[in-house]
C-alpha cells in the first residue's frame, strides 16, 4: 500500500493544472465522498491550491453529476455547496440498518415551518395569526433543534418578539440551493371543489 511518507510527498501537488481532468475529477470524488459538510467552489479550489479555476471545477462537477447518474449516489449542489447523497430508492434498505425512525413531522410542525419558509422573517404571533391557533413552544423547538429555523432578530414592537427564519441547513436538508427553488405558493381557488376534500 503506498504510504505517503515524507514531508515532500505531503507538499502541495504540482502547482500547474494537473494535465488530465480525469485526475482532477478523481480528487473531487475522493474529497466530496469523504466530507460530510457540503463543499463550496472556494473549498474545492483550496483542495487544488487554487490552481484550478472555479469555471473548470464547475464543469467537472457537472460531468461528475452525470457520471453518477446510474449509480446509487447523486452529487448535488445545495445551498452550502456540493455534496453526495444516497438516492431515495435506497432509503428502505438503509432504514433496516438504522432502527431509529427518521423524523416525521406533525401537521402543526409542518404548517409552522411553511409559514416561516414563505413569510420569513416572522414572529410567533404572526404564525398564530395565520394558523388561528396558539403555537406550542414545542413546535418551534422541534424546528430549531433540527437546525432548520433560527432567530434572526427581534421586531421593534412591545415585547420585542423574536423573528424566525429558515437556515441554510434547511435548504441543504431539502436538497435546495435557495428559497427560490421551493414550490411556488398555490393560488387558492376561491371555489373549493369537493375533490380537494378527499
Amino acid at each position, binding site marked *: 500500500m503506498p504510504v*505517503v511518507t515524507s514531508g515532500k510527498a*505531503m507538499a502541495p501537488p504540482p502547482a500547474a493544472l494537473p494535465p488530465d481532468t480525469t485526475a482532477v475529477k478523481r480528487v473531487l470524488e475522493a474529497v466530496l*465522498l469523504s466530507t460530510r459538510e457540503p463543499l463550496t467552489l472556494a473549498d474545492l479550489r483550496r483542495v487544488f491550491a487554487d490552481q484550478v479555476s472555479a469555471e473548470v471545477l464547475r464543469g467537472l462537477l457537472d460531468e461528475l453529476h452525470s457520471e453518477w447518474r446510474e449509480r446509487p449516489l447523486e452529487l448535488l449542489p445545495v445551498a452550502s455547496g456540493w455534496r453526495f*447523497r444516497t438516492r431515495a430508492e435506497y432509503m428502505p434498505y438503509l432504514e433496516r440498518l438504522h432502527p431509529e425512525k427518521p423524523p416525521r413531522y406533525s401537521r402543526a410542525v409542518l404548517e409552522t415551518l411553511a409559514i416561516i419558509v414563505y413569510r420569513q422573517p416572522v414572529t410567533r404571533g404572526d404564525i398564530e395569526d395565520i394558523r388561528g391557533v396558539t403555537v406550542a413552544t414545542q413546535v418551534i423547538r422541534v424546528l430549531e433543534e433540527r437546525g432548520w429555523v433560527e432567530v434572526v432578530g427581534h421586531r421593534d414592537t412591545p415585547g420585542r418578539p423574536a423573528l424566525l427564519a429558515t437556515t441554510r441547513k434547511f435548504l441543504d436538508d431539502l436538497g435546495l440551493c435557495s428559497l427560490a427553488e*421551493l414550490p411556488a405558493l*398555490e393560488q387558492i381557488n376561491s371555489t373549493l371543489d369537493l375533490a380537494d376534500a378527499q
Partner: protein
Amino acid sequence: MSTSATIAAAAAVEAPVSPLARIYGEPLVQMPHDLYIPPDAMAVMLDAFEGPLDLLLYLIRRANVNVLDIPMAPLTEQYLVYVEAMRSQNLELAADYLVMAAMLIEIKSRMLLPRPKAAVGDDAEDPRAELVRRLIEYEQMKRAAQALNQLPQAERDFDWVEVWVEKTLLRRLPEVTVLDLQNAWRGLLRQAKLHARHLVQREELSVREHMTLILRRLRDAGGFVEFVDLFDPALGAPVLVVHFLALLELAREHLLEMTQMEAFAPIYLRLTDARGDFR
C-alpha cells in the same frame, strides 16, 4: 339566501321541528348527520383539525361553496355544533375555537344589518372580508406545508454520504527549518560554552560537506577509487580546493587510506574501514 340553501342542502339540514339544544343562543334542531361524530371518535377528530380555520375550511369544502361568498348562517351553525360536541365530551376546548365562534356570530349579525352606504364607486366592506382573507391565507400555508413535506428530506428520504477517512494513512512528519537548526546549535553553544573550542568557519562547513561526499563516494565504490576520479575540474578551482582539503582532513582523521606504489604512480583511496570488509 340562495347561498345558504346550497350549504344547507349539502349539510342536509332538515326543516326545523323543535330545537335539540341551544348553542350560543342558536337553536339546534338536529345534529347535521354529516357532522355527527360518535363520542369516542371525538378525541381523534379533535386531533384531525389544526384549529378553527382548519375546521372552517373543512366545513366549506364539504359544502363546496365559494369561499368568497360564504353563507354565514349555516356555516356558523355547523361550526357551533362541532364546538359544542367537543365541549360536551368534556374535552379541553382550545380558547382559539371559542374566539372563532364569537367572530363567526359577530359576522353573521353584521350580515343581517343594512350595509352602510359607502361613497359612490366604493365597495362596501363585506363583514366576511377578514375571515375570507384569513381562510385563503391559511389554506395556502396548509397546502405549502403538504408540498414541503413531499420534497425529499435528509434522513427521511436520503442520507448524506461520508466515507471513512483513515487519518493514520497520512503520516504527518515534523517540519524542520534552517532557523530550527540554527536555534538548536545556538542552544548547544550556550549550554556547553563550545564557541571557544569550535571556532568554525563557513569554509569549514563546505569542507565537512565534501568530507561526507567523499566518504559516500568511497562507500558506494566499495573498494579503491583512483585519486583523480574524485575530482571534477568542471566544478572550478574553489570547489577542487575544498574537495582536496576535505580529503586531507579525512586522511588526518584516519577515515581513509591513500596508497601509491611508487612515485608518479596512480594514487588510490579507500575507506579505512573497507579493509577486510565483508559487507
